[in-house]
């Protein structure tokens, strides 16, 4: 097991290197630091000195890949590539454009992000799986038919509509919860209730339909017929046999996103003013703070790779046929 995990982590390295090279190309080769400086300082009326100063403050004044001026190993380390990209591997993110330490920001913002993403994940999974089981139980009836129709309609509605509509109705008209904001401790529940419910509602349509298809595929299999032939009730068949076997395809889609929960949700967080990583990313995008975007890209891919690893490990838990080698 440990050997397997270790080997998988080694496999992950080239992928991370690839991600890093890609972001490096995007951020430093497609557009030179000069372009970015001009962009930040305003396209017109910008002096070369101002550009130099901007670059020096952020450490972008070094050569990209190879530093002629430095000595020894410095030829490779005193470069933008080493300082900005390679250091990401030890989770040294450097500073944002406003001078704050990105690593510290990420640590403090992870909490609020998780406080909203985790309930959404758990509640959403519970609601959609039970809803899908219900549709599967009542399959080929009008309940199932209209359930699917409702799902298709719900997944055709823009997620922005759920947010804007929910905020307007619940907060502005009914005054049940604050429109936006965040507080620490137990007080947070007041602020988190609406965003969590809205995110769950927005995801019901597509997930329910997807789980229903999985359940129906399982229900058509031979072992289900055998279970029915034994005289088991339909409910017992559904919960004890179908649900268990359907866990494998469900896990594929679900486990991989667990680590990404740390990243939070971009839109929900920015609409509800929750100081998590999602709104941090949006702010960075709007302020064109490339250092932050670069760090988030790196963290995102690290978490995704962890998610893939967790998915494989979870298979061994639910499917005894799967052996890790």
């Amino acid at each position: 097991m440990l050997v397997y995990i270790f080997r998988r982590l080694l496999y992950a390295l080239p992928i991370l290197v690839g991600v890093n090279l890609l972001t490096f190309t995007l951020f430093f080769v497609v557009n030179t630091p000069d372009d970015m400086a001009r962009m930040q300082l305003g396209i017109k009326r910008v002096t070369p000195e101002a550009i130099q100063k901007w670059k020096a403050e952020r450490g972008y004044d070094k050569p990209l890949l190879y530093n002629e001026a430095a000595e020894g190993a410095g030829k490779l380390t005193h470069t933008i590539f080493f300082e900005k990209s390679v250091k990401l591997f030890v989770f040294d993110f450097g500073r944002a454009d406003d001078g704050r330490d990105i690593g510290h920001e990420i640590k403090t913002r992870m909490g609020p992000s998780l406080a909203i993403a985790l309930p959404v994940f758990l509640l959403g999974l519970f609601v959609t799986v039970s809803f899908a089981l219900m549709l599967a139980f009542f399959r080929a009836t009008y309940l199932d038919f209209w359930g699917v129709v409702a799902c298709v309609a719900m997944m055709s509605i823009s997620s922005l509509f759920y947010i804007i509509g929910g905020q307007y109705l619940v907060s502005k008209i009914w005054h049940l919860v604050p429109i936006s904001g965040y507080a620490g401790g137990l007080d947070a529940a007041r602020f988190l209730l609406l965003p969590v419910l809205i995110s769950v509602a927005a995801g019901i349509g597509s997930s329910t339909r997807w789980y229903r298809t999985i359940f129906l595929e399982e229900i058509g299999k031979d072992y289900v017929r055998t279970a029915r032939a034994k005289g088991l009730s339909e409910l017992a068949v559904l919960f004890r046999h179908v649900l268990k076997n359907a866990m494998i395809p469900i896990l594929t889609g679900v486990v991989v996103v667990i680590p990404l929960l740390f990243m939070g949700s971009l839109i929900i967080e920015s609409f509800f003013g929750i100081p998590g990583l999602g709104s941090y990313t949006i702010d960075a995008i709007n302020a064109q703070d490339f250092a932050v975007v670069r760090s988030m890209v790196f963290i995102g891919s690290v978490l995704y790779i962890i998610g893939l690893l967790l998915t494989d490990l979870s298979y061994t838990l639910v499917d005894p046929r799967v052996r890790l080698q």
Partner: protein
Amino acid sequence: MPIILWTDALVFLLVACGAAAGFYVSRREYLLASWRRVGESRAGMAALTVLAAYILIGLLDSLHYRPRLEAVAGKPANGYSSEVRSALDALLQPLKAATEKTYSAPLATHLYARETVELPDGTQARIFPRLRHGGAHLGDPAEDWAQDVAGRIVRGLALAVLAGLTFAAIAVQAAAVRWGVRWQTAWRRIRRGETHFAWNAVLVTLAGLLLLGGPVIALAGGYHVFGTDKVGQDVLYLTLKSIRTGLVIGTVTTLAMLPFAVALGIVAGYLGGWVDDVIQYLYTTLNSIPGVLLIAASVLMMQVVIDTHPDWFATSAQRADARLLALCLILGVTSWTGLCRLLRAETLKLRELEYVQAAQAFGASSVRIMGRHILPNVMHIVLIAVVMDFSGLVLAEAVLSYIGIGVDPSTISFGTMINTARLELAREPVVWWSLVAAFAFMFVLVLAANLFSDAVRDAFDPRLAGRRITLSAQGQTT
């Protein structure tokens, strides 16, 4: 002077591809059979009718030109305006030109906000001024408004009924001639749904569209049917213009990613070995970056490129178009991985089949086997992926525009409309019309796309064949 923007060219290319594919399919019975199954689906055909209306508007909006400048006194007219217009703009010119000062509610005759005006006797008063265009033909809005609006709606409905009946009559007559029966028989068959093609669904949907559209057209002549936005633009005009952006994002993106996904997927699956390793590495890497962040990074970079090279674009429309195209390409690059993986897996299966081995034994080259024998047999996966992706992309555009990494702010799209309108709910009284209009048009488009893609998937997915669940098959068996 006609002008072809980059996205226009791609849209026309897409139409040409569609026509070519239609011609190709119409000559091959085994492909036609699947499409006939699509045609049997009521929901699918109703959705297709709605989509056709959207596509018509989108295509009209893709014919761009720069109007000739009016001759200025003393000088002959020889230049062209820097404003790029489309055929749809020309058609909607009355709506486009009818701008008000600021917000006005749907069908309103007065402005949304009070203004200080000078009365004829010299005193000043704070009143709601009359609109410049909405209901301007009314003498006394308080008295005439209801009657005028009702009259226009009735006239619109009458026109719609007339148009609907004409179309239905043509369709029924054509069907009668085709089947060699009397038109009453043809009408009965269509009405009862005894036809292979779901004609009744098409006709009912068309009737619905006409009954909605007729009154809107009749009202649009004298009012702002969906009101006006902050700078006084007609919201109906804005929503109609948004359609093209949505369609372009949904289709051009797929067009941009298809060659990559298909070529790489098949090559990886068929050749295997190091080629497979490289391609797998490529898509795992791309896939491991969360989509939104990769899009954000690319769009930010592209924005810098566009902003630092203003001399590349003659008009602002061309710049906005370049950004739209770039967004499509970026979305395409980030979304090809899923299809690529599917195609690789399918090719791995196909390559072991006898007919491929037979082709190998005949000495056919790898390129030929991939092109002649494998590609046609994975096309159903490609088709399903294309139609399934469409609705997601239309929805994604709105979200991306909200984050600020979507289309150019000057491009009219559902996303930019929602983004500018979302703060208006905080006003008192509430300005709800532009939000509702944008969401409603987007919902109908995405719903139609979803229903149509379901119909296509049901017809083409071999795994679903033979175990379709219908209401008629009641009971516990599936």
